[in-house]
């Protein structure tokens, strides 16, 4: 069977790279004695696919992976693996999905990044002025560093939410193909628009979504 899990990566693990996360999960699968399936061939590895790559330096509330395993109730899986996972990496929910379901990598096309600001940063103004732009040009931080990238078509939404002693700037952007907006590119745009780094208390990825006709679905809702 194939299982899809939604998990949280807490701030203590925000410096782990994608390979580190994978090793952490694989080792937990072995410790919990989950009946995972292995690939065929000379160098067998666990059929685990990380749907989302959490960038180094970022923690995440809702990340996803798919795992192939022998029959097992999703609830049992969750209970067994959460015991051996560190407190800062916990499965929140998981469901069985059809074996032929499209991969997470292919379907996830949107991410929400939350930036926690000190109050009084005039975040509302930042939101309106950015959303009013026709183009938001930024030097790409991805593979092609020469590229001047226009973020505007992938900047779906920005909202300011009040908090207790802080404000949350929530940004919904396109990821993966055709336009991948990175969180550090957003940081660069904010800096250009006058947001000082000492006024930025924290940032993380709130979630990963499948966007269809301006609606957002979680990868557990839309398989």
């Amino acid at each position, binding site marked *: 069977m194939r299982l899809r899990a939604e998990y949280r990566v807490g701030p203590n693990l925000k410096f782990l790279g994608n390979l580190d996360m994978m090793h952490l999960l694989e080792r937990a699968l*072995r410790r919990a004695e989950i009946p995972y399936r292995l690939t065929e061939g000379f160098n067998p590895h666990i059929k685990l696919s990380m749907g989302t790559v959490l960038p180094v330096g970022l923690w995440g509330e809702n990340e996803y992976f798919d795992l192939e395993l022998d029959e097992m109730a999703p609830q049992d899986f969750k209970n067994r693996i959460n015991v051996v996972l560190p407190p*800062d990496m916990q499965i929140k929910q998981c469901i069985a999905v059809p074996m032929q379901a499209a991969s997470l990598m292919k379907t996830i096309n949107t991410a929400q990044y939350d930036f926690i600001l000190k109050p009084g940063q005039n975040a509302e103004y930042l939101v309106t002025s950015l959303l009013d732009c026709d183009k938001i040009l930024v030097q790409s931080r991805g593979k092609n560093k020469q590229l001047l990238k226009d973020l505007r078509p992938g900047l779906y939404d920005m909202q300011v939410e009040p908090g207790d002693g802080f404000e949350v700037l929530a940004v919904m952007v396109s990821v993966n193909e055709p336009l991948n907006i990175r969180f550090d590119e957003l940081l660069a745009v904010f800096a250009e628009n006058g947001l000082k780094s000492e006024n930025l208390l924290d940032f993380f990825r709130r979630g990963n979504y499948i966007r269809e006709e301006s609606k957002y679905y979680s990868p557990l809702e839309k398989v």
Partner: protein
Amino acid sequence: MKDRLFRDILPRVSKPVRYIGNEVNMIKKEWDQSHIKMVFAFPDVYEIGMSHIGGKILYGLINETTPHLMERSFAPWPDMEGLMRQENIPLYALESFRPLSDFDVVGFSLQYELSITNVLNMLDLGGIPVKSKERGPQDPIVIAGGPVVFNPEPFTDFFDAFLIGDGEEITVEFLDCLYKHRNLPREELLYLLASEIEGVYVPSLYTVAYREDGTLKEMRPIREGIPARVRKRLVHDLDNSYYPDQPIVPYMDIVHDRAVLEVMRGCQRACRFCHAGMVYRPLREKSVAVVKKQAEAQLKNTGFDEVSLASLSTLDYSGVNELVKHLVETYADKGIGVSLPSLRVDAFSIDLANEVQKVRKTTLTLAPEAGTQRLRDVINKNISEDDLFKAAESAFKSGWMGLKLYFMFGLPTETNEDLDGILDLLNRVKGIGNRYSHRPVQIRASLACFVPKAHTPFQWQSQATIAELDDKRQYMLKHKIKNVKVSFHDSHVSFLEGVLARGDRRLGDIIYLAWQKECKFDGWSEYFKFDTWMEAFANFKIDPAFYTRAREYGELFPWDVIATGASQAYLRLENERAKKGISTPDCRMADCVGCGVCPHFGLAPFHLPNQPVNLPADIMTENIKEEA
């Protein structure tokens, strides 16, 4: 402080995971309820320090079985150090994020002579006076253990005490004694530790005098009850000594990213250059049943996908066949592999390597050490050309595509003929490979500079100079072989290693000055600053070559204050036999060769059954034993 690190510091450094702690199986004990608070300090980066078995043993032993606590700290990479100094963040332990200066004991593991500048740097970053004599009542006791402390003399300025030998034997006693006498003044405390616990060497309790020619004249304790020679501590029974069932599982890739099982300690092959082979004698094996149990526990508690059998020469472990078969049978279908760290040069080793590596056959590593039979006899590396060719044949026949061969150069009595011998061996091994493979096989040779080490039969030998080594290198590079890559260790690094390996107390000033001139990570070529070191020697008008010279029998050595159990007479005899090019058998397969270690520690010699080899007539064990 953790908040500041995570918010302001770590996002700006390379490999931040080195500094976050909190790994799976980390043990964080209650600070206030623990007796002695000790930090295990490793003077290199996290991924190297976390690969070290000794540290894993001590960490589990202290935290799980005693009322004391042990945390960990590693050398920060220079980018992190720079930020820490700039932002006033002291070097901290990964469990509690407390600065090193908060601990009662800071214990360094010295695995390599050149890591000493990192020790100084870590103390300084941790808010502890670098020199022992400058530490006061509030400062931690700074100690060291590991193979390097079998000659502790060059490092005496920086440590309050050295713990000699197997750490699990001595560390708990040390901490217990410290706790019992915690209210005594520092000086009295150190005296008590040195007088009550065997294996504790407190250098400030000894006086040293030199002759006019610079050699040691005398070294003796200045107080009653302090041993003239400090004997190493030894685990007698590995089966019943502590071994961790749930070691820490790092988040990042480390050098040895797997469950590591120590199958035996010590080696009796008696290679005459080998420091570990001498100081860790005698050989002690774990039983197969115990290793099986430890493998099961470690795999269950860590989730590693690989298990490795560690020792100085794992293929010599008497249960290796049974154990490897068991591990492969039990774990292969779970996707868990077995690895053997060091192979012996023979066909049996290759067969076993095939057993565990049914998969990608990339490169095998073998260590013939020298290019001619004559020179292998000199260094007592008991393998023949025939063994090597059979090993190579067996490897290529079963599909390996590459072979890596380790040699040393600059060995005693070495001539150009021996260097030619290396090239000849490489050529012939390549020929064997090409007979069995369609594609050209890759042969790589790595040549290390021979460094004479304390407590070995070659402690009297001179070390080849940098110029001599460079000539030898040039000579070998003149004869390039297609598809054979030969690489050489840096002779400058080896020179400094040789100076420290047989150095004395006068080197303390030089180490201190080199560190002040920002020498650190000397074992990393990108940071090694040879000229700075030479300036430091010049500043104190000390000729470093004094320490790499040949030495006379009868010269008193700085490391004579440490006893390994091996007798001087045995070492001398082995050195003489080397000069004559006569080899000595492995005493597991022959009668006792009389090194003196077993009787010294009241152990029965370890022999393998049914493999009688006659001892050469000139080894008169009884005589040696008497002298010892």
